[in-house]
């Protein structure tokens, strides 16, 4: 039996980089650093307070050097876009056990401008290069699209249902000045957009942007001295079950089933108690499958669950209220931005912005998916 976090750890600061979207004059590592500086300032903490360092995409060695941080706890868990949600779990564990006091999680990716990014090449005798690359599957989009056709065949899921996710998410983006795409779209717009890889069109796919993000955690006790309303971590879960899409054990189920179950069990909350869901949306289908896997609806009913604008502003299931990876920002590994938005909603940062603020938001689920439906991290967060 895992010992729970019991709300003993809280998020006390969150931030994006100084600018997000198209930022061709800022290398990736500086995107990390800008977000880190702002998140610490928001929390009322100093760089010297940070003793736990967490990131993915670059080594914590490089991050620590750039920021002048010498951590006593270092964690470079890198399993794709879910990594930062998993870092919350690892940071909570470390803080609860006194292995560090203030944890800094950062992300920075020049996904669009490719400034200061590592080379993308894979070795020609890697397993991916031998068993997937020669067949011309564009990654990662082709993997998600292929998994989607299996769901369509097994459960009758339609492109119209997938499009509902893009349309509702765009409605949230119209309310977010930081969102890259803010013009409303319709289901027909999604269906008729440029085909990318069947069944996805351009509007089923996330953006490619430049952005950094940061999250600061400490004990709930120490959080009382911080500047912001603390947001408590109630439950966490993580898992992964493949790296290559051709090795995915089931094309219609993934590690979110495990990470979600464990996070909900630890938090001791029911699905119908949640006020907000931040669900990683690399592609429309990622969301539909994740909702099923997390248990918000029965297997195969994801399409129906998202239909009729249920996840849009004013709908009964507020989801991806920042406009998501589909319309707000997606530099490559989006997970940290889902955390940032959940925290802002739970702090009621948008209280003066009408329907953008999820009314009386107290409890949120944040879910990150990484690789090609490979990894999953789930966290349940609460207004403390």
């Amino acid at each position, binding site marked *: 039996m895992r010992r729970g976090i019991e709300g003993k750890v809280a998020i006390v600061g969150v931030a994006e980089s100084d600018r997000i979207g198209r930022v061709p004059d800022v290398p990736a590592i500086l995107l990390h650093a800008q977000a880190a500086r702002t998140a610490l300032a928001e929390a009322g903490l100093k760089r010297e307070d940070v003793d736990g360092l967490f990131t993915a995409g670059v080594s914590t060695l490089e991050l620590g050097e750039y920021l002048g941080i010498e951590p006593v706890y270092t964690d470079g868990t890198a399993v794709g876009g879910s990594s930062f949600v998993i870092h919350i779990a690892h940071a909570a564990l470390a803080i609860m056990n006194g292995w560090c006091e203030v944890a800094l999680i950062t992300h920075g990716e020049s996904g669009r401008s490719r400034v200061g990014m590592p080379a993308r090449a894979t070795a020609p005798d890697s397993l991916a290069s031998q068993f997937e690359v020669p067949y011309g599957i564009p990654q990662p989009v082709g993997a998600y699209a292929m998994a989607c056709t299996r769901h*369509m065949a097994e459960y009758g899921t339609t492109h119209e249902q997938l499009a509902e996710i893009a349309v509702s998410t765009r409605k949230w983006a119209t309310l977010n000045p930081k969102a890259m795409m803010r013009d409303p779209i319709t289901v027909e717009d999604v269906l008729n957009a440029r*085909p990318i*890889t*069947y*069944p996805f069109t351009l509007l089923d796919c996330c953006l490619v942007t430049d952005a950094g993000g940061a999250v600061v955690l400490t004990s709930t006790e120490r959080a009382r001295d911080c500047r912001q309303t603390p947001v408590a971590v109630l439950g966490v879960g993580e898992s992964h079950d493949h790296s290559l899409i051709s090795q995915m054990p089931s094309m219609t189920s993934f590690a979110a089933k495990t990470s979600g179950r464990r996070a909900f069990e630890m938090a001791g909350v029911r699905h119908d108690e949640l006020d907000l869901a931040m669900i990683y949306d690399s592609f429309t289908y990622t969301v539909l499958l994740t909702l099923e896997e997390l248990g918000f609806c029965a297997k195969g009913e994801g399409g129906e669950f998202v239909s009729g604008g249920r996840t849009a502003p004013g709908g009964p299931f507020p989801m991806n209220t920042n406009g998501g990876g589909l319309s707000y920002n997606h530099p490559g590994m989006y997970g940290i931005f889902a955390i940032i938005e959940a925290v802002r909603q739970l702090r009621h940062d948008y209280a003066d912005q009408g329907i953008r603020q999820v009314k009386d938001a107290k409890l949120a689920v944040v879910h990150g998916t990484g690789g090609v439906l490979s990894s999953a991290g789930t966290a349940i967060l609460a207004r403390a």
Partner: protein
Amino acid sequence: MSGTSAPQKPLPVADPVTKPFWDSVKRQAMELQRCNACGKFIFYPRGICPHCLSDDLAWQPAQGTGEVHAFTIVHRHPNPAFAGEVPYVVALIELTEGVRMLSNLVGVAADPAEVKVGMPVEVVYEAMTDEVTLPKFRPVGSRQ
């Protein structure tokens, strides 16, 4: 002829564990590994069975048949060698032996009205160079 060369598709480079597979494909007689300890087929080739961790593995001729487990039709690819051939079908094939293999579906229009999940397929061998052959699949009964 000299000057601009045509864009090249990336080709697999075998490692010591996978080499028997690629050699069998080049001979147009695809083989798969089977674990002598637990009896299960394995793909991709491994040095240790992912089901029981035994290293008592043997190569067996594959039947060369299966069905489309899932597919996608590619309309865009960053590599010009692939982009020049869109649209084409990438499919996850479930072989009769029970293992799954990524490949291309040929001999059928790259059209969701023609390609179906569950469609029975058989292997065809496409020589990419003198050295490298890829296993591809076509619908059973297709003439291509």
